[in-house]
C-alpha cells in the first residue's frame, strides 16, 4: 500500500478525548448518505449526548481516505473508540441493530 498519503482523519478529530468516537463515511448528498447522517446524529444524541465525537467524511471529496480506511460500501460508520473497531454499513435505519452493534448504553427515559 502507498505509504505517503495525506492527513489521516485522526489528526482533525473534533473531540479527541471523547469516550465514543465515530467516523461516518458518506458519498455526497445521496439519499442513503443523507439518511445515514440524520440517523447517526439522532442515535448519538439520544444515547450518547455529550459523550461522543462524530466525523463525517465525504469520500467523493477525499477518495484516498476510502482506500486508507478500507471503505467498500457507503455509507459506512466506523466506531473508532472504544476499541475494538466496529463497522456498520447502511443508512443506519435499523436502529435496534445499530445500538446492539455499537454496544450503546440504553437511552435515558424520555422526559
Amino acid at each position, binding site marked *: 500500500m502507498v505509504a505517503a498519503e495525506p492527513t489521516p482523519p485522526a489528526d482533525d478529530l473534533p473531540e479527541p478525548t471523547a469516550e465514543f468516537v465515530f467516523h461516518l463515511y458518506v458519498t455526497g448528498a445521496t439519499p*442513503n448518505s443523507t439518511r445515514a447522517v440524520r440517523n447517526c446524529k439522532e442515535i448519538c444524541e439520544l444515547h450518547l449526548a455529550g459523550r461522543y465525537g462524530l466525523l463525517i467524511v465525504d469520500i467523493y471529496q477525499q*477518495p484516498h481516505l476510502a482506500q486508507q480506511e478500507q471503505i467498500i*460500501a457507503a455509507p459506512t460508520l466506523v466506531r473508532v473508540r472504544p476499541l*475494538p473497531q466496529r*463497522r456498520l*454499513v*447502511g443508512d*443506519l435505519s*435499523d436502529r435496534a441493530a*445499530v445500538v446492539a452493534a455499537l454496544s450503546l448504553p440504553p437511552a435515558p427515559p424520555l422526559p
Partner: protein
Amino acid sequence: MRKKPLAAAPALPRLPKAPTGIDGLDEITEGGLPRGRPTLVCGSAGCGKTLLGIEFLVRGIQQFGEAGVLLSFEETAAELAANVTSLGFDLGALQANKQLRIDHVHIDRAALEETGEYDLEGLFIRLGYAIDAIGAKRVVLDTLEALFAGFTNQALLRAEIRRLFGWLKDKGVTAVITAERGEHTLTRQGLEEYVSDCVILLDNRVIDQITTRRLRVVKYRGSTHGTNEYPYLITEEGFSVLPVTSLRLEHEVSDNIVSSGVPGLDAMFGRGGWFQGTSTLLTGTAGTAKTTLAVAFALAACQRGERCLYFAFEESPAQLVRNMRSVGLDLAPYIASGLLRLEASRPTLSGLERHLVVVHKLIGQFRPQAVVIDPISNLVSVGSASEVRSMLTRLIDYLKVHGVTALFTALVSGSRGLVELAEEGVSSLVDTWISVRDLEGIGERNRGLSILKSRGMAHSNQVREFVVTARGVELLDVVIGPLGIVTGAGRLSQRLQEQAVARAAQFEVDRNDRELERKRRVLEATINNLRTEFESVEEELRRVNDQAQARQQAQDRDRGTLAAGRPSGGPSAPSETPA
C-alpha cells in the same frame, strides 16, 4: 517470440483489442482482450488466475506503456509482490514509477454489520481514484467474488456488480475480472451473466498423475478466436499459452540441401540430401542404429559450422559421447566449441507441454540450425495420442517456422508401429521419413534402411543394408540374389556362389580354346595328308602322260618311214624328211 500488436490497418474495422503480451494468448484471441471492456477469467484454485491478471498489467506497462490498477480482494500488495518476484516482476518499482497501483480491499465479515440500505460506492470511488491517479488503462479485479463473503444482501451485490461493469466500460479501461470456478457454472456466483464481452476459462486437470493446465476462450463477442482448449504453463518467465507459434502454414522454404551425415544415405536422395529446414522422421525397431544415424546427422551439421541442439531422452550426454566414440563419431570437440548442445532429461519428468516449452526455450536461446530429438516416441509415453499429436504438430511447426532442420527418431514395434505413427499423424507432419529395420535371416540379423517418403525429391526405392563400423555408418552396395536383394551371410554366400560361377565360366572358355586348337591341328594334319596324296596322284598321272607321249612319237616315226618307201627306216633320218 512475442509479437507486436497487428499494426497494419485491416480492410474492415475490427474490434479494438488490448494485447496482453502473454505468450500465445494474443494469438488465440487474435490480438488481445477487448479494449475498454471487461474480460472474465475463471478457473479453480491454482490455475493462475491472479498471475494472468498481474502479467496482463505488468506486460501492459512494460510493452505497451499502459498503466494499470490491481484491486486485490485476497492478497495484500506485499504478498502479491513477493509471489511474482521469481518471475522477474518488480511490482514495487512499478508502483514507485506510478505505472501500477495496487489496492488491497480487505473485507472482514466479522467486523461488519448491515444496518440499512447501502451501495458499493466506496469501491467505485477507490477504483476511480486509483485509475485517475496514474491514468490507468488496465484494471484487474482479483477476485471480485470475495464481496459475496462480506455482504449478505445478494440482490444488492448483483446490482452493484452489474453497475461496476457498466462503470468500467464507461471509464474505457480494459478490465480483467477473475472468479472462482463453480460446480456447474463457469463462476461460483454466476458473474458470467454480467460480463458478456469475453470469457476465458482456465482449467487444471490431472491425467495419469500428470497435471495439465488448459485455457479456453469460452466467448469473445465481436471477434473470432481460437476455440480449442490450449495447454498453458506457468514458467519461470510467466504465463505461456501454447501454441506459441503461428496457427497458419506460411513459413518460408529453403532450396538448400543438407547432408544426412551418411554419404551412402545422401546418395539415395535425388539431390544428395534433404532440404534445409525440413523435418525428418527416422523410425525403427530397437537396436537399428537410430541414435547412431541421428548423431551422424548432428555431427554433419556441426562440421558445416551450424549449431545443433540434441535432445536425448534415453541416454545421458556423457554416455552418448562415449558410445558414439566407439563408432567413430566424436562429439566432444563440438560440445567444447559450443556448436553442439546435448540436453538430456527423462521424458516422464514433466508433462508434454513442459517438454514443449523447454524445447521452445532452448531453441529460442541457442538458435540452432539443426535439432535432433531422440526419440520422440518416449514423449508418447507421457501423454495420450491426441495430446502427442497436437504437441508434435506445434513442435514441428515451430521448427519449420524458424527454418530449423530437424531429425526425430522414433521407436516402433514392427509394422504395427508404423501404422501407429501414421495414426498419430506424425508421418503427415514430417517431410522425409526414413525407416530402419531388422532384416532377419537364418541365424543372423542385419540392418536395412529405406526411404518411405521424401517430399519434393526423387529418392531410391531400395532397402539398403548398412553396417555400423568403427568409422561410422556405411551403406553397403546392393546385392541382388535370385529372390531379390540379399544381405548379411546371404550376401557372402551369394558372393561365393558368384565367384564359383565365374570360375566355371572361365574354365569353360579355356576348354573351348583348347578344343579349337586341337581341331585346328587335326585339320592341318588332314590337309597335309591330302596334299601328299595329291602329290602322289599327280606324279602317277604325269608318268602315264609321258609314256603316252613317247608312244605317240614312236607311232609317228613309224608312219613316216612307211611313207618314204623304205622298208625299214633308219632311226637317224626321220626328222629331216618332213622338212
